[in-house]
């Protein structure tokens, strides 16, 4: 169970995130949707204690992430390329993570053998360092890296971006399987409404750092989300002078 309590983040007195209370039960697949600058990456970075909350706290399995490092053994994430080590090959990277998570080489190999389809023959056995791989392949490596060591909380920022259609479908199957088996709590953000509604049981829409919708996914969810963003777009065209999401999301 992850609890967000009264958390807010400001950059130079501009508030980019403000969530009063949010609870994510164990094993839930949780989707985060919002336009650029809505605060998705900021929230994920707070989960990983990569940025300091201006106030409030996040508690993950009973551990306040900004106060103790004990969340590290059961949490894994892939946010961007800075989660990859450019001068390693894919195998070396997986073994590196495996070693950090107390897995033997054999255990890592066994896990990887389950991802043959997902890798599509482009990842393993390549005489290539990660920095020389395409964006899409880097993403595949990062996502699988985040699955090593049976983490209880998996955080993936924009996992569908840059992936080819086949891999997108395979990723969805993968995430669904993890959810069905209740292996881990998955936190996913995406711009693709279709993908998230397919994968996530629950979707929260962020707007200017505030949760404006909290939906339990159903047949109607995709329509609802599409209608919501269409409305947003109209509103913005009408009042063009309103400046939206002023801050850079990548902070």
């Amino acid at each position, binding site marked *: 169970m992850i609890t967000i309590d009264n958390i807010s983040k400001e950059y130079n007195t501009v508030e980019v995130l403000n969530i009063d209370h949010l609870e994510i039960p164990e094993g839930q697949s949780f989707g985060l949707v919002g336009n650029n600058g809505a605060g998705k990456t900021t929230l994920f970075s707070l989960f990983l204690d990569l*940025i300091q909350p201006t106030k409030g706290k996040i508690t993950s399995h009973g551990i306040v992430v900004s106060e103790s490092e004990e969340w590290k053994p059961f949490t894994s*994430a892939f946010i961007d390329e*800075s989660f990859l080590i*450019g001068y390693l090959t894919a195998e070396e990277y997986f073994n590196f993570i495996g*070693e*950090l998570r107390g897995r033997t080489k054999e255990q890592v190999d066994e896990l990887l053998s389950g991802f043959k389809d997902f890798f599509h023959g482009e990842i393993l056995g390549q005489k290539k360092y990660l920095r020389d791989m395409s964006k899409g392949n880097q993403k595949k490596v990062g996502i699988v890296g985040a699955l090593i060591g049976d983490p209880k909380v998996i955080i993936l920022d924009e996992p569908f971006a840059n992936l080819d259609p086949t891999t997108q479908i395979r990723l969805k199957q993968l995430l669904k399987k993890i959810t069905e088996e209740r292996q881990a709590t998955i936190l996913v953000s995406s711009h693709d409404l279709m993908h998230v509604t397919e994968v996530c049981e629950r979707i929260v829409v962020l707007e200017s750092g505030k949760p404006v919708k909290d939906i339990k996914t159903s047949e109607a969810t995709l329509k609802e989300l599409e209608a919501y963003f269409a409305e947003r777009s109209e509103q913005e065209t009408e009042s063009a002078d309103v400046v939206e999401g002023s801050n850079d999301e990548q902070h």
Partner: protein
Amino acid sequence: MKKLISLAWKGFRRSSYFQMNLAIRILIILGFIYFGGIALFMGVASFYIIKKAMDVDDPLMIVNSFLIYWFLADLLIRFFMQQLPVMNIKPYLILPFRRRNIIRYLLTRTGVSFFNILPLLFFVPFSIVLLIEGYSIVSTLTWFLSMLCLVFSNNFINFLINKTNAYFYGILAFTVALVLMETYGVFKITEYADDVFSAFYEQPYVVILPLSLLYLTYKLVYNYIRKHFYVDGAISKKAENFSKRDFTWLDRFGKMGFFLKNDLKLITRNVRPRQVVLMSFLFLFYGLIFYTQDIYRDMQGFIAFASIFVTGGFLLSFGQYVPAWDSEYYKLMMSQNISYKKYLESKWSLMTTACFLSFILSIPYIYFGWEIFSMIAGGAAFNIGLNSFITLYGGALNRQPMKLNEKAKAFSNTQAFSPTQLIITIPKLVGPIILFYIPYKIFNYEAGIITLAASGIVGLLLKNQFLNFIEKTYQKGKYKTIAAFDEKQ
């Protein structure tokens, strides 16, 4: 062409240089003035100095006899320091620019480099002095022109040896052969080189040789780029040759071997750390400068200073960039299942292992006597027991990100360098000298060495306390460091 220059100007104006803080900018400018000033001064004065000191009529002869070394050293320094032109050619490929123009522009731009300006600052005033001193105008001009050609030939040769292994090994073999033949007296290149350089002055038509060398190297580079002028080609950053070395043999050393393995990969597979480690290896020989000269024999402070460098080369040069070496994937290190303390401890182990290895490699220094070797041993103890912690502590203040696979540029790149770095260097170097010198003055030499060694042992005993303290410092700066490393350059 004009457009390209204006674009480059914008790139330059908006580059990190102008966004760096004032202190660093002043340091760079001072460095430039310093080296430039020396070159200018030598250009004007060397003629008279040589004349006076060596009592010769023709100082140009003496200068000529040294030029071969000078150009070789120049090439060596360029190889390690000079940045090759990396240009983002992608946007230009589809725009209506002629390839020829882009390549010409690119090659011309390499000419405007510190490494080409510096020699000019010497050769121009030197030639003027020659003219004033009554050397023939035509001869002086051809000599100057020859030097100019050679400087720029070096510029292009550097490009070739950086890009193609064939040239690199070719020139390396050639140089080694020359040096060997020189030392064994088979063929003394310096005598002939002397004649060649003099010929530029004495027989003006010989200038055709350096001119054609310049043309040849220019053409070679031009053709090379022309052939590779595609997005995945020569001037974009190229995918590096894959190395099979994966250091799995280190696995048997358990957890520590695992981190060591990764750091060895970091060093062998990236340009910048390779460069730094090579430099730190050279520090092993630092002692030779001091131990061989009689003046320093009695200046124990200097001996202590040199001894710190012998075993501490890696610690001082590589260690000062911890944790910036991991800046490209710092977020991973901060969120993966490794505690901050473990992470820091692994870095500490790397540094102390290197110190220990350097110490073993420094055993031949026994040749200079036990007194000096005991000093090296004392220095090693200090490096392992105290300097390692000071260096690690200094890293907490260092928030400059580092691009691993790019060479350090001279005077235009201060990646992972900050004034705090300089300040933290003071205790690293002055500390051991004081620790040695005070008991040495009060009691005797042995007392100095024992104090130095004891300080290191005390440091080792306090390892846990030190690491805890350092970890707290890192924790405090954690968010700032992550944010700083995340900044795009």
